């Protein structure tokens, strides 16, 4: 991995950010471990929240990376290294799941035998919602994602010293079925890890809704990172305002897709008004949860949408500097809004472990991702498709 060190990113703040991320991660991790001894129940809740936030970002990056291989547009090359850095953490995140295996009865009502014994509906769902099958499914998802991550990064690393089309074709051949596999595995993972926290409730749109949020958060993060480093060599050769304009449009598309799914779920449940469905909505409309819902809709959709739609070609780059962190942070709030109300049906409540656990996992995750990023040049310069893009661009700007 170190053979590209001379061309790797020599951008000072990146090292500084990595150190800060690690320090924050380690300190928050120590506090979280302390929290486990104080209140194991809240520890597992906070840990699950942190886990689904960060694996969601990494999975969104995996989906975008595969979309990049399938579409081959220049926008993908601007994001490629940032996506790869996030995807590289997937095997690590797979290991991070282990603590959760010890908290299943604390987290999931269907894993508490005493509760299931009194509940005919949960007994009926036992063939799917039971501890051994849950563990097997989780292991399958994590293995599939880690495997795809390992293969894609292996080929990409080899591509750095070879400009043959073979490696790119291999990545494309994986990406086509890979995206379909991602859609199913990420959807089932969302159902298992998040939706089954409220096991009496169900929504058939849930998986896709979570996936749309994942990809949106990933796109916001990668675009923001690429915007931040756009003047760094070699990224500056490709990153033009035109490409960021395109990325803004892509962000707009995913923003609409995510809010569409979120709203349609709300509309269908609201119109049906059935007892087993409406409780999920009512829970999120009451007490403090209403404010969280409003933050997600207004700051997570309305404000970034208006800013992106109203920005022309030139101001788009500046607008993106505000919009990408805003979307990323509100998507984290969105995951919080999906997961945590399940734990506090009586009103809004936050426990300090719900801050430290996501910070711990996020700090360690970011530190690991930046480790990958710093080892590699910001553009896959040997990629034959990138060479083609540069050649096309040269032809069109050369004065005749």
């Amino acid at each position, binding site marked *: 991995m170190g053979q590209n060190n001379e061309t790797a990113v020599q951008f000072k703040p990146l090292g500084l950010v990595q150190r800060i991320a690690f320090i924050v991660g380690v300190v928050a991790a120590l506090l979280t471990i302390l929290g486990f001894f104080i209140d194991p129940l809240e520890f597992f809740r906070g840990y699950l929240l942190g886990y689904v936030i960060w694996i969601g970002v990494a999975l969104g990056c995996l989906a975008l990376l595969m979309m990049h291989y399938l579409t081959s547009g220049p926008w993908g090359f601007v994001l490629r290294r940032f996506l790869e850095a996030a995807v590289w953490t997937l095997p690590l995140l797979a290991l991070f799941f282990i603590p959760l295996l010890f908290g299943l009865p604390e987290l999931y009502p269907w894993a508490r035998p005493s509760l299931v014994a009194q509940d005919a509906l949960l007994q009926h769902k036992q063939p799917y919602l039971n501890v051994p099958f849950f563990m097997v499914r989780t292991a399958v998802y994590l293995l599939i994602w880690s495997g795809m991550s390992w293969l894609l990064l292996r080929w990409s690393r080899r591509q750095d010293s070879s400009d043959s089309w073979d490696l790119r074709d291999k990545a494309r051949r994986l990406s086509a079925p890979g995206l379909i596999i991602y859609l199913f595995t990420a959807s089932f993972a969302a159902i298992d890890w998040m939706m089954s926290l409220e096991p009496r409730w169900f929504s058939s749109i849930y998986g896709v809704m979570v996936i749309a949020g994942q990809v949106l958060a990933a796109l916001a993060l990668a675009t923001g990172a690429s915007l931040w480093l756009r003047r760094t060599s070699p990224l500056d050769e490709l990153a033009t305002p*035109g490409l960021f304009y395109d990325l803004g449009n892509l962000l707009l598309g995913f923003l609409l897709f995510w809010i569409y799914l979120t*709203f349609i779920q*709300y*509309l269908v449940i*609201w*119109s049906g*008004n059935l007892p087993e469905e409406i409780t999920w909505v009512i829970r999120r409309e009451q007490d403090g949860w209403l404010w969280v819902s409003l933050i997600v809709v207004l700051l997570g959709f309305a404000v970034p949408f208006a800013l992106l739609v*109203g920005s*022309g*070609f030139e101001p788009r780059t500046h607008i993106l500097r505000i919009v990408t962190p805003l979307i990323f942070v509100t998507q984290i709030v969105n995951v919080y809004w999906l997961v945590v109300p399940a734990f506090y049906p009586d009103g809004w409540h936050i426990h300090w472990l719900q801050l430290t656990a996501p910070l711990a996992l996020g700090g360690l995750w970011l530190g690991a991702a930046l480790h990958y990023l710093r080892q590699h040049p910001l553009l896959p310069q040997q990629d034959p498709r990138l060479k083609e893009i540069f050649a096309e661009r040269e032809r*069109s*700007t*050369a*004065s*005749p």
Partner: protein
Amino acid sequence: MNEHDPELYGLMAEFAEADALKTAAAAARDAGYEQMDAYSPLPVEGLPQILGMHHRRMYWIVLVGLITGGVLGFGMQFYASVIDYPLNIGGRPLNSWPSFVPITFELAVLVAAFAAILGMFALNGLPQPYHPVFNVRAFKEASRECFFLCIQASDDQFDLEDTRWFLQNLPSVKGVYDVEP
């Protein structure tokens, strides 16, 4: 300098490539010409900026259409189900705003689209049965494969000899034509 030829609408230069047209337009702008227009069979990114088309009037027209459509869409549903014919449907409130959203959205998009089409016609002056540029025989290629830059005689800097010389010396110019009014 300022001797206009009343017999002429302007001078037109022909190019084979979009980038040659862009270079030419930039050169003409730098030379101080303002009354000019470019003709191309395909959209050329960056050309409107070179030609000084910075205005965003279309954005505002479409925005007004969007808001009108949205207010209209929501208002119709609100009027029908709350004011004109209140009806208890499954115990839901009369102002069932979540179920009004799809129609509100559809009407907002519909009116915005009409505003865009009508606004486009209003701003670009179409339909226009006669335009002097069509007097140039080669101009019929403008909708197929050739690119044209026309500097109009109404420009303060326009001078038949100087402007012709300027256009003829642009890089990769294929021809310079007089445009009869």
